[in-house]
Structure formats: structure tokens, C-alpha cells
């Protein structure tokens, strides 16, 4: 079961919900893994302070042309759609940062002159916080392509257990890479013109992927009722409303987990999970009767 938390607009509270849900659920579900797929700006670790046990460098395969073998025929330049190779009469230039690792140049070279080089995309770091498994990607600063690194983080989704995915903002390829294969998407938004505009785009992206979704409205009292109206019109379940609370903002600012400093947040997270499970239908069967457990 994979639940992704996404938003369209940045700064609406994805990380807050992902990290707090993960910590609240780790005693409810037998196996919980949180994947931070916002590899450009991964923030969950700031709240979880996990113990990291493994770091894997992730590399993209790029061409490295052996000039002793190269006949300067230009076939590699021709097949490359990304302008990563320029062949001049006596000079073969590669621009590894533009390469998408499609392998076309390796396949097309008649002289076998294209050798396998590599470019560092970033790292995937694995760790845990108590029973919670945690994996994050960290894009190398200066690297443009997030999706291949995001796909590597997604490979760590824990088989039969519950996986939560903290997705990047926006609606383009990094978001699609993070959301693909999810069983449910929780869209976190705020009731403002920017929040609604970006929510509409995010809903479009989730619909293309055909994944069931629900909406959480953060700072629900700062703005108006445009999100509620939109959710009603589009028949997307509204799963949670979180009014602005200065204590929440301050705890977030300091890097504190709300479920630890504001006890009512634990119950809020369990209620949200129940709501997700009711809509999604495939999770949350293992904790009936937990109402009395707080």
C-alpha cells in the first residue's frame, strides 16, 4: 500500500503531514516506510532525525568517446535528441550534464568508440527512526534531472507494508515520477487563489495517472471556501481541514514533530489515516478498536 502526499503548490504542508503520519502510524501498522521524494529539497529528515545506515551514490550513464577508435562519422550526434554530443571533423565533444542516458549513442556507434562514463545524480540515503524505515534522495546541487533519482528512491517502497511518499511540488515530470504506482494520493492545499490554481493542476496530474485521491486543506481559516467548493464540484473527498495554529507554525519552525509536542495531533493523524482508508478501501484493516488506545 503506497500513499503519496502531494500538492501542486509548495509550502502547503506536505512534509508536515508525511512526517507526522509516518510517526503516528508506525505503532499501528506492522511496517511503515517513509520515502522523501522531494529530492531537490528533502526536508523530512529535519523532523525525523533518523539514523542513517546506508548511502548509495546514484549515477547516470553518459557517453565517453574513445578518440582512438572514433571515426568522427557523427552518427551519435545525430541520434542524440538532447544535444549532449557534438562531433567536429577532428574533435568529439560530450556534454554529460545534458545526457538523458537513453543509450542511443552506444547502440549506434559503428566503431564501438562510445564508452560508458558516468555523472553523479545524487545520493539515496537509507535509515530508520525506531520502527519507522526512512529513505530519502538528495539531488546533487547543480544537477538538473530529478526524475531518475526519484525513481531510485521509489524502488525502496516496502513490499507488503505501508509506504508513505513525500512528493515534490509542481505537476511536471518529477511529480509524476514520485506519484506513479501509488494507491492513493493525498493533496495538501490552502484555501487561496494560488492554492486552488495549483490544486487544479495537481488533480489533473493525478487523474492522468488514474489514482484515487483526497484533499486536506491546511490553514483552512486563512482564505475563503474556494477549495471546499472545488472539491464538491469535482467530487473529490475532503479528508481534513487544519485551521491556522501558531503553535503548529512554531513547532514546525523548530523542526519538532507535532505528534510529539501537541498530543492531539496523534489522534488527528490516525483520523486522517482512517479517512484515507475509507476512501481507498485497501488499508487500515489492522487497527480496529484503536480509539481507546490514546
Amino acid at each position: 500500500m503506497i500513499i503519496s502526499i502531494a500538492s501542486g503548490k509548495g509550502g502547503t504542508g506536505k512534509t508536515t503531514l508525511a512526517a507526522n503520519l509516518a510517526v503516528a502510524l508506525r505503532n499501528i501498522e506492522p511496517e511503515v516506510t517513509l520515502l522523501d521524494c522531494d529530492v531537490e529539497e528533502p526536508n523530512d529528515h529535519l523532523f525525523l532525525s533518523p539514523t542513517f545506515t546506508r548511502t548509495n551514490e546514484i549515477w547516470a550513464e553518459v557517453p565517453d568517446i574513445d578518440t582512438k577508435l572514433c571515426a568522427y562519422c557523427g552518427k551519435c550526434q545525430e541520434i542524440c535528441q538532447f544535444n549532449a554530443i557534438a562531433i567536429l571533423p577532428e574533435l568529439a565533444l560530450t556534454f554529460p550534464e545534458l545526457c538523458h542516458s537513453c543509450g542511443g549513442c552506444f547502440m549506434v556507434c559503428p566503431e564501438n568508440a562510445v564508452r560508458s562514463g558516468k555523472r553523479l545524480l545524487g545520493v539515496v540515503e537509507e535509515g530508520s527512526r525506531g520502527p519507522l524505515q526512512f529513505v530519502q534522495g538528495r539531488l546533487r546541487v547543480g544537477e538538473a534531472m530529478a526524475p531518475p533519482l526519484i525513481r531510485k528512491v521509489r524502488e525502496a517502497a516496502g513490499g507488503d507494508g505501508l509506504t508513505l511518499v513525500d512528493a515534490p511540488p509542481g505537476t511536471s515530470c518529477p511529480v509524476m515520477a514520485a506519484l506513479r504506482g501509488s494507491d492513493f494520493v493525498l493533496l495538501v492545499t490552502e484555501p487561496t487563489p494560488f492554492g486552488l490554481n495549483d490544486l487544479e493542476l495537481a488533480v489533473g496530474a493525478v487523474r492522468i495517472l488514474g489514482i484515487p485521491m483526497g484533499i486536506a486543506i491546511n490553514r483552512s481559516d486563512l482564505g475563503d471556501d474556494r477549495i471546499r467548493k472545488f472539491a464538491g464540484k469535482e467530487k473529490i473527498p475532503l479528508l481534513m481541514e487544519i485551521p491556522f495554529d501558531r503553535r503548529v507554525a512554531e513547532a514546525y519552525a523548530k523542526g519538532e514533530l507535532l505528534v510529539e509536542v501537541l498530543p492531539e495531533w496523534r489522534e488527528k493523524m490516525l483520523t486522517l489515516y482512517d479517512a484515507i482508508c475509507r476512501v481507498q478501501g485497501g488499508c487500515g484493516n489492522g487497527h480496529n478498536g484503536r480509539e481507546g488506545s490514546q
Partner: protein
Amino acid sequence: MKELVIISGKGGTGKTSIVGAFAALARRQVLCDADVDAADLHLLLSPTVVERHDFRAGHKASIDPERCTQCGDCLERCRFGAISPDLVVDPLQCEGCGVCHHFCPAGAIDFPESLCGEWYFSQTRFGPLVHARLGIAEENSGKLVSLVRKEARRMGEENHADWLLTDGPPGIGCPVIASIGGASAVLIVSEPTVSGLHDLNRVGELARHFQVPALVCVNKADLHWDGARQIDAHCRSAGYAFMGYLPFDADFTRAQVEEKTIIEYNQGPARDAVVALWEKVVRALQASDVGV
């Protein structure tokens, strides 16, 4: 003409509200929304679209079942998992590399250019705006960012503008890299949170990598003054010019709901803080010799 690009690393720190306010304060300016993935500046500026252009970039493969001999060569070659076992291309997974198209022995794979979005020349009450809309789930956001910036710059030069104010995307990846190259400076809008500081570090490093001078301000500073001052101190040690603090103020949200900038909304403390910030940014940019 000076190009100031407003970025943040972390999303939701207030970039667009600040760009809107600067648009209201600047003179002889051209505006550019380079957050093509989730563009919001138009919601404050209510632009009238003057020209609308298709944005075509890259190609997508498509297998013609009539010509296909089911040999499966494409399936073996595709590194993006974009071809299903029954030999249909998923356009969302297709990277547009053309390898399948090039090698298909039956010549059964078409490779048309794809329509990825639209871009616009518009007029607003604060001057011309160049903006865009990337199709949902589309690629090539970096190319679209480069395009709108180039067009905005051209318009600025034609109009003899003094300022090009560009609203940047969040993060540090492809569209951000395309947003900042060659700019006079970036203004990084941070917030006094552990995430704000963490993300400021990464996007600041990116600006340094591309040799663009970085200015920094802290929005919502009064939510956590210790954190705000920590960012100020960090800027001193990292060599970023610190431009000051803005308050957490629900007037920013109220102004947005009324589709106004904070400058037009009222005469409150948030407006005063933004005016002071703009004046400081102008001085910082005039003191340096960097132009576009």
C-alpha cells in the same frame, strides 16, 4: 536592465506575493513568470493576453500497429520502461530519445514533435508580462523557462526597461537552473524554519555554482525570531547579502484573495516592510555593476 529572479528553494515562502509587490513598486519594468509548472503570478496581475503561442519541444514515440511486425526490438532498447509488452508507448514515460524510432526494422515508429504547453505576451496594470503554462505532466520545463526569459528580456530591451522581475520556481532542479543563469541577481525568499534554512543553503549553493549573486530575505520572520536571526547570521558567513525581514501577516492572504498585491491592498505594516525590502534590493543592485 537588471534582471532580478525571485527564488526560494523551499516552496510556499512567499515568492509570488513579493514579485507582485515589486511589480507594483518598480518603474519601467517587464515581468516574467518562470514558474511554468505552477504559475500563479497572473492571479495577482490579472493579465490581458495579447499574444498566445504554442510551446513545442521534444518528441514522443508512437508505434503504428499497422506497420509493426511485433519483433520487440523497441522493447529491448527502451531504457525508460515506456513500451508495454504488447508494444504500445506510454507517452508519460517516453523520454523522447528516439532510440526506438531510429532502430525499428519495420520503420513502424513515428516520432512527432510534441505540444508541451503555451506561452503568452500579456499586458498588466504594472507593465508587460511574459508567462506560460506547461501542460500537466509534461517535460521540458527548463526549455520553456529559458524561452519565457528570453522573450521577456527581448521585450525589456525593446522597451528600454530598467527592470526585469522574474518569478522563479521552487527547488534546485532543471527549471530553477534555467531560471537563474545570467541573471543580475537572485533574491532568495527564505522563512525562519529548519526547512527554510536547509533549502536556502542548497539553492544558495546553486546560485554560487552558476555565479549569480544572491540576496536573501526572511519572510514570516516573527513566527520564529531565533530562526530568522540564524538565517541573517548564516548569510553573513556564506557571503549572501541580507536584505531584511518581512512579517507573517494575514494581509498577504487577504490581498491575494482580492487579486491585489500587498502594495495596493492597504497601508499596513506588511506593505511598509515590502517597500523597505524593495528599496534595499534596488540599492544593492545599483551598487553592483551587474547588468543583463
